């Protein structure tokens, strides 16, 4: 079996290559059924139904974004009523500055809700994905560069309680993986 990275560094995991989305999908189902927990499949595009094949739950990002949106909305409410009703009531065309003025405040409430929600969606996604980062052990493997082109990979990490280099290598081979490689850190 091949090994990449610094051989004296700790093992990150064992990875295998697959040729198409279908093979990767079925491999994922079997890895899930075998009870691994620290593993991932890598593909050039999101594969429909892969979350179920891996046994992953729905992303919680939507819930985070709700609170982001709420933050934006409350910011606008505070800013608009705080300044226009209390700090500096500006009478224009005899219009009130109290609660009845809310229709005129609505556009900015809407815009700030959207703005903070969008920031939460993007930065929440990055944080949950552990990004940005400049390097990763998997990048030590040259073949892995094809993951952004047209190849598919599975990696089972050494932190998984069921991990042992030998057995995982055999397991991935039995799933039809090729170029099975042990990945070391730097």
């Amino acid at each position, binding site marked *: 079996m091949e090994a990449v990275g610094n051989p004296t560094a700790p093992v990150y995991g064992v990875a295998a290559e697959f040729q198409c989305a279908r093979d990767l999908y079925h491999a994922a189902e079997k890895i899930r059924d075998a009870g691994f927990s620290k593993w991932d499949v890598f593909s050039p595009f999101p594969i429909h139904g892969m979350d179920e094949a891996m046994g992953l739950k729905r992303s919680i990002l939507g819930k985070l974004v709700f609170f982001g949106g709420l933050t934006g909305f409350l910011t606008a409410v505070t800013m608009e009523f705080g300044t226009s009703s209390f700090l500096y009531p500006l009478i224009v065309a005899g219009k009130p500055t109290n609660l009845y003025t809310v229709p005129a405040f609505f556009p900015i409430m809407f815009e700030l809700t959207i703005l903070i929600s969008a920031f939460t*969606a993007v930065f929440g996604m990055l944080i949950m*994905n552990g990004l940005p980062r400049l390097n*990763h052990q998997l990048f030590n493997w040259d073949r892995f560069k094809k993951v952004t082109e047209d190849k598919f990979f599975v990696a089972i990490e050494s932190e998984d309680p069921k991990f042992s280099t030998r057995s995982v290598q055999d397991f991935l081979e039995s799933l039809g993986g090729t170029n099975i490689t042990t990945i070391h850190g730097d």
Partner: protein
Amino acid sequence: MSNATAEHPEHLTEDEKQLVRKPLVLNNRTMGWISDYISSIVEGKTPTWWYVSMAITVPLTLMCLALLGYLISTGVGVWGNNHPIGWAWDITNFVFWIGIGHAGTLISAILFLTRQKWRTSINRAAEAMTLFAVVCAGIYPALHVGRVWMAWWLAPVPNANAIWQNFRSPLLWDVFAVSTYFTVSVLFWYTGLIPDLATLRDRCTTKIRKFIYGVLALGWRGGNRQWRHYEMAYLILAGLSTPLVLSVHSVVSFDFATSVVPGWHTTIFPPYFVAGAIFGGFAMVLTIMIPACAIYKPLHDLVTTDHVNKMCKIILLTGSIVGYAYLMELFVAWYSANPYERAAFWYRAFGPYWWAYWSMMFCNVVAPQIFWFKYFRTHLVWVWVIVQFPNAGMWFERFVIIATTLARDFTPSAWGMFHPTWVDICTFIGTFGLFGTLFLLFIRFLPMICMFEVKAVLPEADPHHGEANH
């Protein structure tokens, strides 16, 4: 119908054959080809046409910047704005550019939510176009305030005078709407770029490129544990952008609609502005994409005639909505029995700016009707020529709304005409240079087509591809 039968249409009856969808990518292009070809546009030697184009657009951009410097140093009087036409080409051009900036988000958000998969090959360029159009648009409201160094007064920050903004003013809504729109569009565009930047990073041969694309790709690895959050983020951004894109031009229209000026004070403005923005935006997408695909011919396998056909149908639809709105405006002006409202529309059509009104009518209502004929929707040269009418017509629309209305106010003593100065004209031409320069830089340094999304619509991207039943 399962994919297995779709791949073997010879087993199907005539009726069933009509149900088989056309492939979105032609000539059986593979995933590898998509990466290779799209990346090669960025990685290859800079073509001569690119330098030639830049030699035109960069001087125009510099002219635009120089004239803006002239305006800031001299005063807003270098433009032709004056009583009674205080809003003239500046706001016309602002609304023109911001309208163009709507098609990108429409394609990326609304067509995404409605699962129109054909959008995948045009959304990246359309989103880029959105950003650059909003950059051009932003110049005008920022500069027309006159003393630009006081533009920060628009921001609600504590100041020594203890003055706060009027949050009930549509002009302040506009500041929030446009800046939110720009920010969210950047986030949406960049989020879409991350996996493709990773593709460029993984293909890099030189250290500098590897560093730059490596940093920009943020360490993306394409793991499904990343994709699932990524896809959720993309879905949420699409969901957020859909009401946002509809709100931005509505808020722009409030600048007019909440005033008491005849011809502006109307409730039809928000939907009519949004339809017009989509109409003009799609025209600009086609104006740019048709030449780009003519230069990079294999792109025709990704941006097919079918794509162009669909975009022409959207132009036809939105153009007809705009035409309906024009007629409804006339009807309501008559039906209101308000003499000022009636006069405003009479002067639009038959007053001193009659030529602008009828240019608008012809370009936006009459000319796009030719897209009822399939021949004109599927022959690219014709399409390109015809979409120039909406491009011009949408500028005339904004000019008509702004200038003709202000030129004929309530009392004849307040009547007047607008004459653009050379600074007005050259600044406007310069914004096209800025738009072109940014777009050329985009084509040269970033993938013009969203590679990972196009790969995902290939038949072999389906995890059940080739299986008999599922």
